[in-house]
């Protein structure tokens, strides 16, 4: 979000593109993607049976490929795509492809500043990751659960370190999986490893582990927390002090353990999606205090308002405020902020954004197929055929709105003060 300070935050609406048509002869254009700063719009364009290109703001990249997919803007507004030429695949950022090509690449990831780009790779049947064009020295039988450190300096994945034939159940039980960091596998081989995650400084890696069919654990840098659990979910590092928190199930109920010690007493029917505030002061997670009733808990304290479904908690920088998506029994979505839902409900509510100070929550909302942006429960006027998620400026007093309306690509900066509760 700090990157956003250099964007145009002048209030008002601007037509970025009068037309989203393609300048060249083409068969079709695929879905549009907007850059985070709202200055550029991109899509894959199919030029002929055997040729695809990348369309950005009306122009098609010079590089052409047999096939292109997964166009994604990084946080720094640079566009990266996955592209196939002559059967092999590579990665292209801003019309410049990586030198090497590979059997298959997928799953583009960016560092927080967008400077580093990583993808998952399969090269001649072996699996690993590539960061900025550099492939892991060691590749594995299989790999998944790929991740890139926030600073982009390191990458990790769950890997199958030991080959295994068909239906080799005993071998699997003895352990063939582990975590590899920058291609280096941990010594500790286990039955399953999932969701490796880096600390903010990229020095530590943690993951969910299954030791036996029913003993679950959390591993940090190849070592295990002393206790095992009935089950665990994705761990997260505290960005301020490097502590590690993970939802764990013990005695039939869910709680949160921090650095191996129970921090939230297990009393929930469910607990997942843990997230620390930026300053590390608070920990939030989605919990179910009763069967079928979900809400958000902050530092172990659940909100009293519950929903059948809650998703995507976001926290203000200091953790004092939180918002999440919520779905009610009529299949309608809304945003619940600081324990209270917005008044209106929608066919869909997309990923929520929260201002750094927590005063405002905003999200793209959908009714009858049309998109609008809503802030603290108020809908902004413009109706879009397609909009993108709103972004707050670093000061938290304006939001950036991006969307397509009547064939035009619009960008608006809207002050939000009037929506303060």
């Amino acid at each position: 979000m700090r990157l956003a300070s250099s964007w145009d935050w002048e209030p008002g609406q601007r037509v970025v593109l009068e037309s989203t048509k393609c300048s060249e002869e083409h068969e079709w254009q695929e879905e549009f993607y907007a850059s985070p700063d709202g200055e550029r719009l991109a899509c894959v364009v199919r030029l002929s049976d055997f040729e695809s290109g990348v369309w950005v703001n009306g122009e098609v990249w010079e590089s052409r490929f047999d096939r292109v997919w997964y166009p994604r803007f990084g946080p720094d507004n640079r566009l990266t795509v996955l592209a196939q030429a002559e059967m092999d695949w590579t990665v292209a950022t801003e019309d410049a492809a990586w030198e090497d090509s590979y059997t298959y690449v997928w799953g583009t990831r960016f560092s927080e500043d967008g400077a580093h780009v990583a993808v998952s790779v399969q090269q001649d049947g072996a699996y690993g990751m590539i960061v900025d064009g550099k492939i892991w020295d060691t590749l594995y039988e299989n790999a998944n659960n790929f991740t890139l450190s926030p600073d982009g300096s390191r990458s990790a994945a769950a890997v199958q370190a030991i080959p295994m034939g068909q239906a080799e159940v005993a071998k699997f039980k003895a352990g063939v999986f582990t975590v590899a960091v920058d291609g280096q596998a941990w010594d500790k081989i286990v039955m399953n490893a999932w969701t490796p995650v880096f600390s903010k400084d990229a020095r530590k890696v943690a993951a969910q582990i299954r030791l036996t069919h029913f003993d679950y654990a959390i591993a940090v840098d190849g070592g295990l927390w002393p206790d095992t659990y009935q089950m665990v979910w994705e761990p997260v590092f505290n960005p301020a002090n490097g502590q590690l928190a993970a939802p764990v199930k013990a005695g039939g109920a869910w709680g949160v353990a921090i650095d191996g010690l129970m921090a939230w007493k297990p009393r929930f029917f469910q607990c997942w999606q843990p997230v620390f505030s930026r300053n590390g002061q608070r920990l939030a997670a989605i919990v179910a205090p009763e069967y079928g009733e979900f809400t958000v808990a902050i530092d172990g304290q659940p909100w009293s308002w519950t929903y059948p479904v809650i998703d995507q908690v976001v926290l203000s920088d200091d953790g004092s405020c939180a918002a999440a998506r919520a779905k009610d029994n009529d299949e309608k979505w809304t945003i619940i902020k600081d324990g209270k839902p917005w008044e209106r409900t929608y066919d869909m509510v997309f990923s929520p954004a929260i201002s750094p100070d927590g005063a405002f929550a905003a999200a793209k909302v959908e009714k009858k197929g049309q998109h609008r942006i809503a802030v603290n429960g108020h809908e902004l006027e413009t109706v879009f055929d397609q909009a993108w998620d709103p972004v707050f400026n670093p000061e938290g007093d304006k939001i950036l709105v991006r969307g397509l309306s009547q064939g035009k690509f619009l960008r608006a900066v809207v002050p939000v003060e009037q929506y303060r509760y």
Partner: protein
Amino acid sequence: MSIPGIRDRKIEDVGLQAGVDRLTEDQIQKTIKKVLKGETGAKLKLYAETCMRCGLCAEGCHYYMSHDKDPSYAPVSKVRQTMWEILRHNGKVSPEFIYGCAQIAYTECNMCKRCAHYCPLGIDIGYIISVVRRICHKLGVVPLYIQDTAHSHSATMNQMWVKDDEWPDALQWQEDEARDEIPNLRIPLEVEGADIFYSVIGPEPKFRTQLIYQAAVLMNETGQSWTMPATPGWDNSDMAMYTGDYEVMGRIKRAHFDTAMRLKVKRIVMGECGHAFRSIYDMGNRWLGWKMHPVRVMHAIEFYHELLEKGQLKIAKTFDTPVTLHDPCNIIRGRGLMDQAREVVKAFCPNFVEMTPNREHNYCCCAGGGVINCGPPFKNVRVEGNKVKAEQLIRTGVPVVIAPCHNCHGGLEDIIHAYKTGQELKFLIDIIYECMEKPDAVE
């Protein structure tokens, strides 16, 4: 302790044998007590206590009917040979006994719940069997093949060890294939905000890619806003549910629903699979604490029906060969789609013949409940255990059987072969694909 019945028909399975070889009675008792105390409650207690041992459920089970009413195959007898004994001995049973429990629970009951229509008390034999399976899982006594499948689920989030790249690669390949027929066809990957997430089962990208192809044609030609994820979470199947590994069941169901929520779709439409529907609609969601599916799940039949109703799916020609319909347990007894299934079939097939009994009372294919996934050692168990199905099929006298479920296909295929009914099996989508209007097709 061992009772005539299962002990007289022991089948060698490496997984089961290796499992029991490590066990002692004390270990068994400890584990059983933990499961019973920690995970069961009033339901099991009441079922055990109030089952009147009246035997009325016997006629409900295809295994019993197919084995000339051998009493040991009656639903209550399966429980008598497993859970009742376990309870009677407070869990102190022998490893050999556990072998028998596993063989019964994994291969002699499809958890199809047909017997529920026969028990006056309302006892859920399928549930009791699932508890037996849970115990066997915790004891590490699970048939080899289905255990391997559960391992695949845990390691790859899909049933067939499909690696992360093989999935999008298979979709892109099917997209290319289908473009020969429909030049502008797309399989849109990772489109946030699409209406529909089309989800399939693990074997489709490996062995049944034509089903993905046909679904893509259907989606394109009826103008749907749809997408498929390029990440794990695409697979809706779930053999962990059937081995009793509920932790892995929860993990893969969460991956599936999280994928749907990440893509912000309004509903998941799934292909013609029964057990996956059960996992998503009934079992997995509950284990995770969601009272109902957190994202609406629609079985293919319901979807086809909607397309026909809305006039989006148009019929170009009818399928005139006489057909019959097999009602898959998990979506008929499990979701009440019998009328919609018939309406879809009749829309395309003017010569439709009912098999009897049908609808909720239809006999299971005997592959369900994970039985077919227990692999070759148990193939005969399900073929012999479903003579009644073969008789049902033969009685219809039609050449084509529609079975809108993957497991049913596997099961019926073997039965058709073994009993030489000479019938051809089809998915609904096979017929729809053949007979629908395809405005964008070239030829």
